[in-house]
């Protein structure tokens, strides 16, 4: 079992996750299907940060959680370090779980309010029996606290005593405890103040440098995504519509949705803001319960032609590393 280092750490192939919509009390019947993630494929190289952006409800969280096996996938395959969670059992599954961790958006909901900081951070150590004695575990927790910039004397405090940014760093410490290779960061900074966001982002970057971590960075703040990610995938209604290296994507967006999204990002520069032409999209993101036919973006697309409503655009590599799904891109 020696995975080649050239092999991507995370491989996602045609992953779908559908949630049935059920009605009825005793005998439930299915009245619909939320196509939250509807066939996405991508790789994440070791040590790389892949950004996943898109509007609310497009399936970013679902994708991240399905990747970690928190939701069983409807179809498709996720390989982490060459292994699929669905085909591993017992100790092998535990070893796989140790390698992949998650950081959540809400620093209030993601820490058990009845546990001390010590128990929270030590949980992965305890569950994976990484350190045999309580004393060693406490030492390791102290070290992790120091690592994320919190004082080790706060070991026995409860989450409610910390500010949002500090809680988020406790979440980071917990994710790091088991020495994972891969961390899904699900909007880790959206709930934080601007002055605190930079603290957490810099911490994530430093940790990545130091421990060669691989991140899937889910966000809707496109400025931050450009800053922190190596490559960026844009999601729309359960599908990835464009994927490219970050500067390529931001400077040369091919998909009309990416272009619209980027044109709407506010830029902290009044002169530029005044000069800018926004591409205003018509209407709202449709429901994933019955997504539009053909290209899912066509009802809002400024470039839409008749065939866009009929055929699903292919996922094509336009230039090396720049993938897009659109009929109208040459």
């Amino acid at each position, binding site marked *: 079992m020696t995975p080649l280092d050239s092999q991507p750490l995370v491989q996602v192939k045609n992953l779908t996750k559908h949630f049935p919509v059920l009605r009825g009390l005793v005998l439930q019947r299915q009245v619909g299907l939320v196509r939250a993630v509807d066939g996405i494929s991508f790789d994440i190289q070791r040590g790389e940060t892949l950004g996943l952006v898109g509007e609310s409800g497009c399936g970013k969280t679902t994708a991240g959680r399905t990747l970690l096996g928190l939701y069983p996938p409807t179809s498709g395959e996720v390989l982490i370090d060459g292994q699929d969670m669905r085909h591993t059992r017992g100790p092998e599954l535990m070893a796989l779980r140790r390698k992949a961790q998650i950081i959540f958006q809400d620093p209030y909901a993601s820490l058990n309010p009845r546990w001390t900081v010590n128990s929270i951070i030590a949980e992965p150590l305890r569950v994976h029996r990484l350190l045999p004695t309580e004393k060693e575990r406490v030492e390791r927790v102290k070290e992790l606290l120091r690592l994320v910039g919190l004082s080790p004397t706060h070991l026995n405090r409860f989450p409610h005593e910390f*500010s949002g940014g500090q809680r988020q760093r406790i979440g980071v410490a917990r994710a790091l405890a088991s020495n994972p290779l891969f961390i899904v960061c699900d909007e880790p900074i959206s709930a934080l*103040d601007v*002055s605190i966001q*930079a603290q957490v982002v810099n911490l994530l970057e430093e940790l990545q440098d130091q421990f060669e971590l691989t991140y899937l960075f889910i966000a809707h703040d496109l400025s931050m995504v450009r800053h922190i990610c190596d490559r960026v995938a844009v999601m729309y209604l359960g599908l990835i519509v464009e994927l490219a290296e970050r500067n390529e994507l931001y400077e040369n967006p091919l998909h009309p949705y990416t272009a619209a999204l980027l044109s*709407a990002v506010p830029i*902290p520069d*009044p002169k530029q*803001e005044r000069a800018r032409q926004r591409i205003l999209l018509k209407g709202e*993101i449709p429901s994933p319960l019955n997504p539009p036919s053909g290209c899912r973006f066509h009802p809002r697309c400024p470039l839409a032609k008749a065939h866009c409503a009929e055929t699903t655009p292919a996922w094509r590599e336009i230039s090396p590393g720049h993938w897009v799904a659109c009929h109208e891109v040459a």
Partner: protein
Amino acid sequence: MTNLLLEVRDLKTRFHTPEGTVYAVNGISFNLPQGSALAVVGESGCGKSVTMMSILRLIPIPPGQIVSGEALYVGQDLLKLSENEMEANIRGKAIAMIFQDPMTSLNPVLTIGRQLTEPLRIHLGLDHNQAQRRAIQLLEMVGISGGANRLESYPHQFSGGMRQRVMIAMALAANPSLLIADEPTTALDVTIQAQIIELVERLRREIGLTIIWITHDLGVVAGMAERVIVMYAGYIVEEADVDALYEMPCHPYTQALLAALPRADRRRDRRLKSIPGAPPNLLVEPKGCPFAPRCEHVRERCRLENPTLTTVSSSAALRGLSGDHRVACWVDLATGAMR
């Protein structure tokens, strides 16, 4: 000088809570000329909402208390008006306010039409048909077409952006001259946020609405404000025209905030600059500069005495930027000298 619509002087608001007194707003003064767009920026809990709610006298008393100050709306002090006068002439009439969360501000069991027409009938005395017509007109004004059909819809049938536009339509019902928007786009996606900003810009051009826009997003501010107030811990720390503020921020906090922002329009060139420490604790009576514990330029004097808001040397004016640029800091960051 242009016509002043609103003039706030030395506003102080506190909350007396079981844990102690919250010093939420500590002496805020600003002028708002007719037809202008003012942005108030600052982090969570710095007192942006409380300032505006104090002006409209919407804070709960107790625990709240407006300790001092005046808020002159075309010359009359809102803080001295009777509750009846506020209700009859100011709130929702002359000054309208919209709030952050479009989900909770609308009643989910009443139709949009009912919620739009009821205030029109009660406050403006319109009959059913007039109210109906006005409601349709208001919806069109905020870019929701479809007229009468839309009035039959329930809030859940509208998306977040549409609900926020309905809130704006409701705020516009009585032809207010001032619209206070308290983080109206924070819960929305960027594409929807762009629609709302565009809408508010248009209203300002077309009906001459004066706007106060509260936000914590320095990007949004750059796009829609003329003048900007930066708040920290219940104080104004810097106030300037939007170009001057971004071109030469004078307060260490403003500078740090701008340096902490990544840019979508530039290649990454450095790590973000983070502001160390945690947001201020408003439970202690402020002494010295509130930003001193987190400031990298801190001096002895900063910890002892709180600097007042003073006009900085009008280099901004020299460079063709108008409006005075005021900052509350002992240190002149350009030279490193004390003011």
